[in-house]
């Protein structure tokens, strides 16, 4: 699908906005304003931005705990993301979820799940719901390479084929499960080989640092599922520039490796493409970056000024109150 200039700029905007949010979040974490775990999406922005740009409103999106980027792509505002990171009542999950648990059901974005692989069975069930009701939505389920080694993955992926569920499995292979390389954790080199074992059509996008290549890979995969042919498995190669989470000493990889990958920074790649193809001017892109910076500054102010959840709401949402 060819994109218009406006659409390109929107995708670029999302990627830059995610990058700025993550960079500022790292600072706020160091300052102690953000607690818990913080997993940054820096380096992987092209993946979720490319995927979500192709989904229709009926398509459900669910992901793992590296979820701020997907949240932005699904239309959650920078303010709601920042406020959630700061644990405020105005956060997208009302300050009860934090970094790893952001969702906006009204936008068909189902989170943000922190137990590795545990959301795959949920995705199978959501797809089952759509199949059961005769809806034509696709459930897009994203997870890391590390999740393909856990039992939940195998139970969910197997069932999706047995029941021909409308689910698109997307493995974001950033080559490390925390600090353990794929080679040291997985018996097979390519994660898609595991889908092959369950007789699920699959593909691998070798360059997840290029958003257009991500989109090229996602489009037919999504179409496959949408046309009623059952599940599809797409592996997308990518790289995270930061540690697994804040405070990761990164003893498991060389600085050179990170620096090499940084040359393929997805934002830089896209920026150069847009300028070279004369789709956008440098000035256009600079403005996007300035605007994103301003949006994040505003979001941080909003988050800082937002109220904490009232202590007398502690027990709210433990159970759904009977109507």
């Amino acid at each position: 699908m060819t994109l218009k200039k406006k659409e390109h700029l929107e995708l670029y905007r999302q990627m830059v906005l995610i990058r700025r949010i993550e960079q500022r979040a790292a600072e706020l974490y160091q300052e102690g304003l953000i607690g818990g775990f913080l997993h940054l999406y820096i380096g992987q922005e092209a993946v979720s931005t490319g995927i979500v740009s192709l989904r229709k409103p009926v398509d459900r999106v669910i992901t793992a705990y590296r979820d701020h980027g997907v949240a932005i792509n699904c239309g959650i505002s920078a303010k709601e993301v920042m406020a959630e990171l700061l644990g405020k009542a105005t956060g997208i999950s009302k300050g009860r979820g934090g970094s790893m648990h952001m969702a906006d059901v009204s936008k068909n974005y189902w989170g943000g799940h922190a137990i590795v692989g545990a959301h795959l069975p949920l995705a199978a069930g959501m797809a089952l719901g759509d199949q059961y009701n005769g809806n034509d939505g696709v459930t897009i389920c994203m997870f890391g390479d590390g999740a393909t080694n856990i039992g939940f993955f195998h139970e969910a992926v197997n069932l999706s084929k047995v029941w021909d569920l409308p689910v698109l499995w997307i493995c974001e292979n950033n080559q490390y499960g925390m600090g353990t390389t794929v080679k040291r954790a997985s018996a097979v080199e390519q994660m898609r080989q595991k889908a092959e074992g369950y007789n699920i059509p699959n593909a691998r996008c070798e360059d997840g640092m290029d958003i257009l290549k991500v989109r090229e890979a996602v489009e037919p995969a999504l179409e496959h599922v949408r046309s009623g042919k059952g599940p599809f498995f797409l592996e997308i190669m990518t790289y995270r520039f930061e540690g697994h989470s804040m405070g990761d000493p990164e003893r498991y990889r060389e600085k050179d490796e990170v620096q090499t990958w940084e040359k393929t920074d997805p934002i830089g790649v896209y920026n150069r493409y847009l300028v070279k193809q004369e789709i956008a001017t440098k000035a256009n892109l600079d403005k996007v970056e300035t605007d994103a910076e301003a949006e994040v500054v505003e979001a941080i102010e909003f988050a800082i000024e937002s109220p904490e959840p009232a202590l007398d709401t502690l027990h709210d949402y433990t159970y759904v109150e009977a109507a």
Partner: protein
Amino acid sequence: MPAITMRQAISDALWEEMERDEKVFIMGEEVGVWGGTYAVTKGFYDHFGEKRVRDAPIAEAVIVGAGIGAALVGLRPISELMTINFAFVAMDHIVNEAPKLHAMFGGQMKVPLVIRAVSGGGRQLGATHSQTPDAIFAHFPGLTVIAPGTPADAKGLLKSAIRSDNPVLFIENALLYQARGEVPEGEHLVPIGESKVQREGSDVTLVSYSSMLQTSLKAAEQLEKEGISVEVVDLRCLRPLDMGPVVESFKKTNRAVIAEEGWGSYGVGSEVATRLYEEAFDYVDAPIKRVNQQEVPLPYNRALEHSALPQLADVVAAVKEVL
């Protein structure tokens, strides 16, 4: 009122709710073509079809996890675990996903899921298939845990569970399937979270639930012949736990025995006894006694198994001890 078996009462509840609401469906191991390993869903497959009575692979995590996913998108799944001993391989989804999602995302998600599971020993199934681990599940806020001891309660509570917007673990007991009792005809609903006095008495409060309710009622009958008046209180739900009728009874009798089939350490009896001490300490005339299973992995040998499980004589002896 006709007297029917517990099996029939549970089967009727499922049948009626499936007839009432098309969103209700069953999935699990051997629930369909086989008719249920305890014959609870016999005839369902032929009547409701494979869409609503779904035979699943032996993969409990996805049986529960997909149930959660389908519940999130508006269905009312019943995930059947053949026995509660298999719940351990689905533990994350039962205790770490289903009860958390509503709270963790600030009330955006609801999980109207029922998980059915058979608990209890006494059938020479050995250590891994004979446990009564009910208390473990009652530990988790957000989960509802129901364990009825009569056919009428089984029917009425299961129907309420299916209509509840919260995730429910519905615990059945294989040795109770043949127990008979009167069940009101027509629409019969029992509210969740209400303990009930099943037999009135004045000397000792005997608290129990599920299989031990039947044993307790027999003990009360036997003790009556010896001039001891026992009030039997049935918890019916382990979470939320309704201490009202228990405390009220205890204030009258000043003596209590708690009988449960599971192990005593950290168990239901420990919880009930503690709450009695907390809420009615001034009424205590004797140390509260617990009757439980011996603290061993349950042996296969019939005599050994029998000696490990709490028996009628143990309950009778405990009541006499607190007098």
